[in-house]
């Protein structure tokens, strides 16, 4: 069939299908008048369209055939053995029951054939040889013996092992309804066998019930040292080649370090033993993930502590769950046994028993009713461990990851909390107990630390402690209220640091209402609470609320400490920041400048608080249109912070970002993009990809790309920011609206007016509602709306809006602010469209005068305006 025919064939086939079946043939006859071959093909195809030849069935059958074929069948030979049937699936291979081909006694053996993987068979072979060597050296009555080995015709290696006819240990315990003592005696024998292997430098790595068979004599036999590997003191490097086979481990019994891909030790076997014992005692594994391969399951094992067995049993007392539980949940075991198992299940190997023998010794102690070594840790121990761990972590990586930044904060809060603890201890026993209980809860939830997910751990600690507090909110006496106020303030402030607005608000308003109800009687503490809550309002962008609270705090602070005290400047800073948010720029600038002078005098120029105020000053100058000042301040601040505290210091980061913003504002897009990209890299490292500051940087970077004319790039970045901001901050948050506004601008510049319109309309409506029309930020959004109207030819509406914007900007920013320029240009364009050359010229001349006040930055705009003016003059001359 020729190419031309092919498209005809397709066209006519589809054409026919659109008709009713009865009309198809006459259609085809009409169309194929002189093309009998085409007609025949089409008729056949249409006939086939309704015929049901099942291709998928064919493919499935072939797939099944292929799969069956790859397994050994009864009668197949493996060396001098003959396969009887498949009996299981091990870590790296399939296990068959077999007998010696020439064995008159028909002794049965287990043959384990490795799943040969093309590409790395040499490596697999080598490991298989190792395994043979290991097993050959292991002689223990509870470990199955290696008899022989070889390879199949297709090269797949196999091992021949003693076959044990028996029952899996879990089924055995269940069917015989063994008592706690019976299970433990059996289990201790398993431990002894593992100990023996460990003494021979063999780690099993894949211990699970299906690898432990109880033979006819009631003796446990350990099988399938499938992925065992010799550990030699001289050779402690992890072979990267072994990573791949870790994936075929059955992860349900694997330790966190195995799941996380970290180094495996004898203590990994200990962990697996702990899981097995847990299951034998309760009928369930510590983590109930049936989906063994899933990432979620691994994460659970790596990041959380298992519930105690007693807790598991309580859950099982729930009638719905009870039916699913085997009768052995009736087993009795004490807290001691729980502690023993939980100690084996510690996530951090260093917190487990240090050997399987220590573990089995404790089990023997338990059976003999001697004291066991696994005891719940005392509070001082927990606190000490926590602080040690985090001090180390802080010292190592404080500046590099958000998770540790979070921990650094938590650590600092902990120190504060401990001080509180001491103070209240002097006070009242009841208070002490309350705080101690809380702290204990927090630390218990945290324990043990592990290398992954630090931030989550801190958050979990807060969430747990918080919900416990909330749950017991009602019906407490005044003495306890004071303690609760402190603890809730600390928790809320920590949430602030983590950028989690809603829980912060909940705890801080909770704490503040205790103060306001007069249940605390501690003004200094109340002041701290107010400042913390006003910080939350800042994060949630509620400037009025922030201003009201900050002013109240300022009054209180002046009474408490006096107006010149550094502590009072914290409150003044909050007031200034609220004024900034409300658009009272000059007031805010003056307040920040005053704070800066005081702090520099008292703390020094490079103190973090001083640098923070310097940053605020720069922001104010930026908003006020004093770009030189702003650039200068950002540069100095960034350099000072970087030199004294490193480039990932928060002030250095913020100033770098601010620098990028100003450069962007004044049209130096390339320099802006460079600064912002650098900031973004650092911020993602230090603060994480979702942090408001990271998003701010991404937002500005997108804008820089807009400035460089790379609209598609700008669009995709803005879309990413918008999505994350909507998720993190909500649809009405001012920063979300700003991204909408900027994205609308990109769409307008791309000529996609329909995409731009809903965005800018939503942004503008919200901003007007939230902060009024005459707020500098609202005016920017209004200008963008006006530009869109202009570009889409709606002159009347554009002009009306531009006039409102001009009046607003003149009133709020003054007649010389560079922002006025875009408004004037817009008005000039309206006039030009109407041939109103004289008023257009007037607007342009005023715009030109504005650019003259910032000559070094607005060359582009100036050139543009001059050109327009020149054209006007020309046409006027004509």
């Amino acid at each position, binding site marked *: 069939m020729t190419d031309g025919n092919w498209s005809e064939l397709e066209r006519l086939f589809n054409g026919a299908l659109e008709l009713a079946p009865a009309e198809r043939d006459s259609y085809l006859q009409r169309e194929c008048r002189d093309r009998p071959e085409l007609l025949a093909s089409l008729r*056949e195809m249409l006939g*086939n369209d309704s015929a049901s030849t099942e*291709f998928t069935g064919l493919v499935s059958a072939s797939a099944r055939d*292929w799969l069956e074929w790859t*397994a050994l069948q009864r009668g197949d030979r493996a060396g001098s053995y003959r396969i009887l049937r498949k009996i299981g699936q091990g870590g790296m291979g399939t296990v068959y029951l077999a007998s010696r081909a020439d064995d008159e006694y028909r002794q049965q053996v287990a043959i384990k054939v490795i799943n040969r*993987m*093309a590409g790395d068979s040499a490596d697999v072979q080598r490991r298989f040889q190792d395994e043979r060597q290991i097993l050959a050296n292991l002689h223990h009555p509870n470990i199955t013996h290696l008899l022989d080995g070889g390879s199949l015709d297709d090269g797949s290696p196999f091992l021949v092992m003693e076959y044990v006819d028996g029952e899996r240990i879990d089924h055995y315990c269940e069917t015989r309804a063994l008592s706690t003592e019976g299970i433990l005696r059996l289990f201790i024998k398993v431990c002894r066998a593992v100990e023996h292997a460990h003494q021979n430098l063999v780690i099993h790595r894949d211990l699970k019930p299906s690898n432990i068979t109880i033979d006819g004599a009631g003796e446990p036999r350990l099988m399938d040292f499938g992925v065992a590997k010799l550990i030699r003191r001289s050779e402690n490097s992890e072979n990267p080649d072994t990573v791949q086979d870790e994936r075929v481990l059955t992860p349900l019994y694997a330790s966190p370090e195995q*799941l996380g891909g970290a180094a495996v030790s004898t203590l990994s076997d200990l962990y697996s033993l702990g899981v097995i014992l847990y299951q034998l005692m309760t009928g369930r594994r510590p983590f109930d993930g049936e989906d063994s*391969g899933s990432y979620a399951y691994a994460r659970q094992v790596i990041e959380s502590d298992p519930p105690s067995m007693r807790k598991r049993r309580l859950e099982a007392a729930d009638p719905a769950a009870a039916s699913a539980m085997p009768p052995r949940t009736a087993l009795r075991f004490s807290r001691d046994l729980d502690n023993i198992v939980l100690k084996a299940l510690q996530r951090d190997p260093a917190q487990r028993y240090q050997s399987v023998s220590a573990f089995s010794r404790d089990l023997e102690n338990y059976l003999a009713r001697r004291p066991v070594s696994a005891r719940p840790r005392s509070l001082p121990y927990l606190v000490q461990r926590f602080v040690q761990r985090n001090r180390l972590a802080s010292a190592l990586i404080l500046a590099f990851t958000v998770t540790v930044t979070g921990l650094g904060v938590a650590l600092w809060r902990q120190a504060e909390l401990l001080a509180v603890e001491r103070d209240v201890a002097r006070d009242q026993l009841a208070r002490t107990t309350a705080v101690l209980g809380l702290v204990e809860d927090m630390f218990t939830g945290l324990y043990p630390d592990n290398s992954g997910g630090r931030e989550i751990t801190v958050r979990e600690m807060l969430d747990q402690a918080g919900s416990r507090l909330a749950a017991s909110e009602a019906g407490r006496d005044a003495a306890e209220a004071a303690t609760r106020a402190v603890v809730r303030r600390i928790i809320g402030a920590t949430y602030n640091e983590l950028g989690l607005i809603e829980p912060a608000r909940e705890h801080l308003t909770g704490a503040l209402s205790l103060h306001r109800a007069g249940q605390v009687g501690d003004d200094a503490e109340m002041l701290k609470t107010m400042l913390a809550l006003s910080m939350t309002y800042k994060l949630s962008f509620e400037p009025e609320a922030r201003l009201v609270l900050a002013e109240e705090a300022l009054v209180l602070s002046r009474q408490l400490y006096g107006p010149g005290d550094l502590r009072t400047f914290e409150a003044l800073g909050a007031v200034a920041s609220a004024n900034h948010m409300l658009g009272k720029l000059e007031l805010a600038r003056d307040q920040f400048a005053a704070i800066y002078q005081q702090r520099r005098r008292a703390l020094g120029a490079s103190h973090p608080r001083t640098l923070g105020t310097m940053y605020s000053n720069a922001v104010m100058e930026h908003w006020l249109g004093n770009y030189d000042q702003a650039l200068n301040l950002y540069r100095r601040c960034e350099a000072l912070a970087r030199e004294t505290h490193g480039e990932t210091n928060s002030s250095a980061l913020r100033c770098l970002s601010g620098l990028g913003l100003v450069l962007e504002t004044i049209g130096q897009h390339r320099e802006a993009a460079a600064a912002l990209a650098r900031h973004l890299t650092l911020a993602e490292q230090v603060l994480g990809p979702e942090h408001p500051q990271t998003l701010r940087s991404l937002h500005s970077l997108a804008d820089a790309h807009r400035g460089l004319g790379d609209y598609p790039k700008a669009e995709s970045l803005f879309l990413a920011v918008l999505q994350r901001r909507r998720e993190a901050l909500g649809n009405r948050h001012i920063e979300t609206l700003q991204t909408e506004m900027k994205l609308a601008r990109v769409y307008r510049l791309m000529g996609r007016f329909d995409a731009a319109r809903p965005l800018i309309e939503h942004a503008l409506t919200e901003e007007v509602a939230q902060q009024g029309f005459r707020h500098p930020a609202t005016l920017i959004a209004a200008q963008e709306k006006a530009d869109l109207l202009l570009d889409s030819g709606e002159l009347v509406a554009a002009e009306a809006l531009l006039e409102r914007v001009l009046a607003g900007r003149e009133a709020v920013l003054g007649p010389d602010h560079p922002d006025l320029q875009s408004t004037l240009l817009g008005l000039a364009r309206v006039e030009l469209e109407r041939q109103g050359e004289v008023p257009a010229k007037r607007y342009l001349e005023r715009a030109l005068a504005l650019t003259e006040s910032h000559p070094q930055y607005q060359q582009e705009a100036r050139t543009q305006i001059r050109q327009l003016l020149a054209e006007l003059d020309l046409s006027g001359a004509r």
Partner: protein
Amino acid sequence: MALTDDEPVTVLLRQWRAGDARALDQLTPLVYDELRKRARIAFSAENAGHTLQPTALVHELFGRLVPSSVDWQDRSHFYALCSRMMRRILVDHAKARNAVKRGGKAYQVPMEIEPAQDGANLEDLLSLDRALEKLAEQDKRKAELLDLQLFGGLSFREMEEVTGLSSSTLDRDLRFARAWLKTQLSSA
């Protein structure tokens, strides 16, 4: 189970899509081996009441090798690759079985009773493969769609998502391609 192992595949996919042919060379054996390995494990899994479909393998493979963050273009490339590999595996297998029948000894012959439908299927699969080759000569895209459906086991909705085609276009193309394929097979 190494949680970070999927990374190289993601990178290779991206490079491949960006036009790096060497990435495909590296990716192909990886996918081929992994499919075979997963199939073997799936088949011999302890609790398998195996009603195994190639579909399940491709999906499982995908879930195993590629993180969910991979975008749809990479996903569609990956599915196409898996489908092609699955077809190749089955065709290789059918050829090998035929060779055994004709007296070769590539595998050992099992002594248990053979499945009844066996022989016919092998030939049919090879015919299907040849017909698909012919289709690809005429219209490569439609042949790829059938690969995805038959050997990748993708549902209609998944194909919509993976190919980015509208449901009406996809439906039309598949109907046409299947009708043509049947015509080829019945005339062969």
